[in-house]
């Protein structure tokens, strides 16, 4: 961590010795339009995909927490995409969303709908990426499932005696008791979404194109480090990301007081 801060204060291309430049890298960051582009791309992705992921994972967990036939099979099938190798999955998406012969485009053509340039029109690329991210919500799903199993049956029974509907039980019994788990998944989801890299790297070949619309922050950081060898500047970028994630996490912890329910005083999350 401290080494990173030290490097961030230098100009260093790995070929010649590092030069001390003080805060110049941080100043350059503020004037770098690509930093804002990368932050914008990442923020849009995070703001839309994290709530969607949490929402669908929670819905799925609630549905599959009921006693239904084939419960185990359903759970397996819904969790499965989360263990897929990211590179293989990205190659697959590249094919599925191909504008000339992808299966999605074929479907649109059969319905006589216009072709959508899923991965080459900057207006659609982020939507495509958010859709892709919804494929692997398995981890959040399993954690929600565990949380649901921790809700005591006695509380449900009591609510039923009091005449609560299904929705009422979910809203006033399950949801409050589940808030710590929602909070955990929220924090993890935000951190993960700010670090999205491999899918973007494979799908755009490392460029973040079209029009830098997929230049996520870590992709830009990678290019500055290992393509342009700007070690000092890239370290400054890394610190920028760290500070952003730290602020978001702390803000979340501060806000958590208002909505996260603790069964025992002094609970950690």
């Amino acid at each position, binding site marked *: 961590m401290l080494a990173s801060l030290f490097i961030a204060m230098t100009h260093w291309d790995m070929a010649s010795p590092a030069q001390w430049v003080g805060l110049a890298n941080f100043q350059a960051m503020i004037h770098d339009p690509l930093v804002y582009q990368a932050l914008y791309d990442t923020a849009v992705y995070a703001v839309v995909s994290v709530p969607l992921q949490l929402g669908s994972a929670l819905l799925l967990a609630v*549905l599959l927490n009921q006693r239904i036939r084939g419960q185990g099979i359903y759970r397996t099938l819904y969790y499965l995409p989360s263990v897929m190798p990211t590179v293989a999955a990205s*190659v697959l998406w590249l094919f599925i969303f191909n504008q000339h012969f992808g299966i999605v485009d074929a479907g649109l053509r059969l319905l006589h709908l216009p072709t959508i340039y899923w991965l080459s029109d900057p207006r659609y690329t982020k939507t495509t990426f958010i859709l892709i991210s919804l494929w692997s919500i398995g981890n959040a799903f399993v954690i929600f499932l565990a949380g649901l199993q921790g809700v005591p049956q006695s509380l449900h029974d009591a609510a039923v005696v009091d005449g609560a509907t299904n929705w009422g039980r979910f809203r006033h019994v399950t949801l409050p008791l589940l808030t710590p788990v929602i909070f955990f998944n929220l924090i993890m989801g935000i951190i993960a979404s700010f670090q999205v890299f491999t899918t973007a790297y494979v799908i755009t070949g490392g460029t973040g194109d079209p029009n830098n619309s997929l230049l996520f922050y870590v992709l830009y950081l990678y290019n500055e480090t290992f393509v342009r060898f700007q070690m000092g500047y890239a370290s400054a970028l890394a610190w920028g990301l760290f500070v952003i994630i730290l602020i978001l996490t702390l803000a979340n912890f501060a806000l958590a007081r208002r909505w996260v329910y603790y069964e025992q005083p002094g609970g950690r999350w």
Partner: protein
Amino acid sequence: MNVGLHAVLIIGAAVNVAPLLWMLSTALQPSGSALTFPPQIIPQSFHWDNFGRALAAAPLGLYLLNTLTIFVGAVLGALVTGSLAAYAFARIRFPGRDALFVLVIATIMLPAVVTLIPQFIEFRTLHWVDTFLPLIVPTWLGGGAFNIFLLRQFFMTIPYELDEAARLDGAGHLQILWRVLLPLSKPALATIVVFSFVLHWNDFLGPLIYISSANKQTLALGLYSFVGEYATHWNLLMAASFLMVLPVLVIFFAAQRYFVRGLQFTGMGGR
């Protein structure tokens, strides 16, 4: 109610699994037919030889060996040093232990990218770039917060009386760990092995940064360069992708409960 629920779940599951089936279907298509319209959902003829052609197009055997070397080296480190650290946190009282443990857990939340550059420079100074060492050695330094956490939680569920009994028989810390705790912790150890396998099998950023020689590539890297060389041969690309997916599928179906257990342990952290 139940019929509607099943309908929703089946449609959802179909959408979920469809991409994988499409991968397999395309992998079996003859060359060129992946580009026809309308697409053939089920190939007219099954070209199993596509897998052979994909295997012949790149030294996948070598990539497999490289990937497995990294995995074995790394998972041993995680098991050995992870269980030592977890033992200390679960069984030995020392000042500042709990604060230190919280610090270890906090590193789960630390974005990995922040330490990426200093770590790269460190390994470069050691002349370890373009070897497997940067991908293996870090797990020998405690095995990662996730593994320590998992094992510590598991050790906590084992009755302390067993330790006492072993101590009366003259066992030291290492013997208690080796003879008492670890034999009882097989599910947790298996969870770590399974998770590590998926992690290292799928890892892309690590090898991308540290490996440059063609003969040291991992499967993930190899598949990525395959995309560049065979950009229009979608059937071969999908065959290669499927070959990479298959072992994960096998492991997943064989060891499902370990995935769920591991996630539930960490997910319920602090409770």
